[in-house]
């Protein structure tokens, strides 16, 4: 099975990085999260309800929709904050890439650890620009808002192709497909990584902490 890969590019001002990334990542996760599964006997299960929340950006003329889960929001915000700090500290021209990867776990026999097989990867390339005055910033607010709107449309287009999605798992397999660590929603297993491109153009790979719930480790 080939992993589906999508690349999005945005150019933003420094203070817009966080919100732009949150907008894109939350839009993707909105589509890649379900309600909590409740398994019953006879192999049936019911699904909880996913609420949604509008989020207004402060530095961009844009509103995005995210899943109503404060836990998930905290995790994503932390990841984006780390990316933003890395981008700021790199001393480069301000180019980097944050990736959201959805994967499935495949159980391996001992002593081999479980295999993580990605089935969808979203890469968001970020180019940070510096602006000279307030007028440029105001124009940037609006333009980045429009660009993010286009990105949302792109995301929706990809999602609605209804390409490969992992099969709905049985109760014993659910942790191989979904992240069941959250109380209120259940996204597909995902991890967020980022790379900062230094001024020479080479990529310095900096892997973030894995955001998976390893049920075997408990």
């Amino acid at each position: 099975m080939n992993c589906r890969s999508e690349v999005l590019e945005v150019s933003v001002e420094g203070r817009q990085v966080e919100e732009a990334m949150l907008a894109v990542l939350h839009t993707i996760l909105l589509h890649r999260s379900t309600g909590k599964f409740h398994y019953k006997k006879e192999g049936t299960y019911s699904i909880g309800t996913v609420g949604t929340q509008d989020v207004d950006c402060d530095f961009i003329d844009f509103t995005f929709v995210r899943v109503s889960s404060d836990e998930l929001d905290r995790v994503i915000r932390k990841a984006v904050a780390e990316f933003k700090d890395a981008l700021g500290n790199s001393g480069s021209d301000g180019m980097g890439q944050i990736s959201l990867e959805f994967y499935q776990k495949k159980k391996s026999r001992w002593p081999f650890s479980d295999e993580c097989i990605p089935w969808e990867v979203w890469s968001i390339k970020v180019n940070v620009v510096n602006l000279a005055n307030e007028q440029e910033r105001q124009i940037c607010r609006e333009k980045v808002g429009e660009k993010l709107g286009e990105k949302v449309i792109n995301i929706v287009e990809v999602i609605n192709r209804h390409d490969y999605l992992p099969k709905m798992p049985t109760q014993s397999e659910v942790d191989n497909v979904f992240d069941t660590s959250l109380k209120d929603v259940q996204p597909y297993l995902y991890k967020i990584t980022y790379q900062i491109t230094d001024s020479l153009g080479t990529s310095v790979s900096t892997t973030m902490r894995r955001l998976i719930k390893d049920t075997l480790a408990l």
Partner: protein
Amino acid sequence: MDSDLSPQDKKDLDKFIKFFALKTVQVIVQARLGEKINTCSSSSPTGSDWFNLAIKDIPEVTHEAKKALAGQLPGIGRSMCVEISLKTSEGDSMELETWCLEMNEKCDKDIKVSYTVYNRLSLLLKSLLAITRVTPAYKLSRKQGHDYVILYRIYFGDVQLTGLGEGFQTVRVGIVGTPIGTITLSCAYRTNLALMSSRQFERTGPIMGIIIDHYVERPFTNMAHMHPCSYRAPGEDEGGTYAGIEDSQEVCTTSFSTSPPSQVMPSLSPFHLVTVRRFRLFNADFSFVSSAKFDSMFVCVCGSEVKTVSPSDALETTFTRKVGAFVNKATTQVTTTSLDLPFAAFAPRAYDLQENDPMVHPPPSPAPSSPLQGSLHSNTSSHSGGQPQDDFVMVDFKPAFSKDDLLPMDLGTFYKEFQNPPQLASLSIDVSVQSMAEDLDSLPEKLAIYEKNIDEFDAFVDTLQ
């Protein structure tokens, strides 16, 4: 072909399409209400949240959607459309976008209805939630209030896009294949917001639409086309129940099977009454549209105040104009300043201008939403009788930074009462006459005393020198 579909699957599919259509309308209209939407996730399925999404049901919107569907379902050649338009305070209207739920003939026979179709419809609703915040009408709807309101209209049948002007864009939200056809959801939105003037737009009377309004007390039931879609409730509990589907026979499928298709087990739950809450109108100076999607800018409309529409106000939203900054309605200003008064611009214009002002319609029984508006009306009523001498215009005294609230002693009254020091008792006429007489009588005695003590007085004067 329907014959390939089992009766249960057919029944489920029809139910899914029906509720998908109703939820689609809810999402679109709620996204144009003008404020942020926030619903809670729930790990325990309640059985009343269709497509596993927390989407509230505004009763009026459901009612309108069901009325438009009239018992039919969106199908091949029968599209359900939600038209969003804008109506200014001057009566100009313009279609902004049309959302179309259509079905084409491309069938997917092998797809599982109770599982795959259901989940894909859920995904499509999520996409709709995202896309409704992206089209240009969203920003306009967030700023609606004084100068314009956003209306919606639901119709069934052929899609009508001519009202969107030239160069409209289309965005496809998504598609879901089913055994009886492929459901497609898309949005066509206007890009050309040309000058809004009465010459460019026909004043065809009441707009075919429903005001997405906040202050309306109850639905306008006596007008064919215009209905407010507000809903109100005291203290809605956000984490509580969602609006239940009116039809108690319909429950949503929340159970799925991981084994080969088995009987779907619907979980029944009592349907709760709608808990509603009142939305607040946004006040914003609608001066220009900053989105680059529009080719041209709105003309600045003068600031005006949308008054609360009272229950007896049937259809009209009435407007009381106040002069605001950047007003470019020259005629109004000229008329106002023709009054030879200082600060004539701040004088209430109602008494002379309202008869000539097409924008202002005398309300049958105004019920102002705030005391401020109430005081404006009191100005109007006090002058509507027409004084014989109109040399002076009574201006209601409103001190700066004061709230014209309902307290008996407000800042204005206090200021008026204690503006001048109280009259000296000795200066009041009645009292002074009496004391004057007494003073005159006692004068000789006083003079005698003073002459006796003249040495003391001289010594006192010496100390002062």
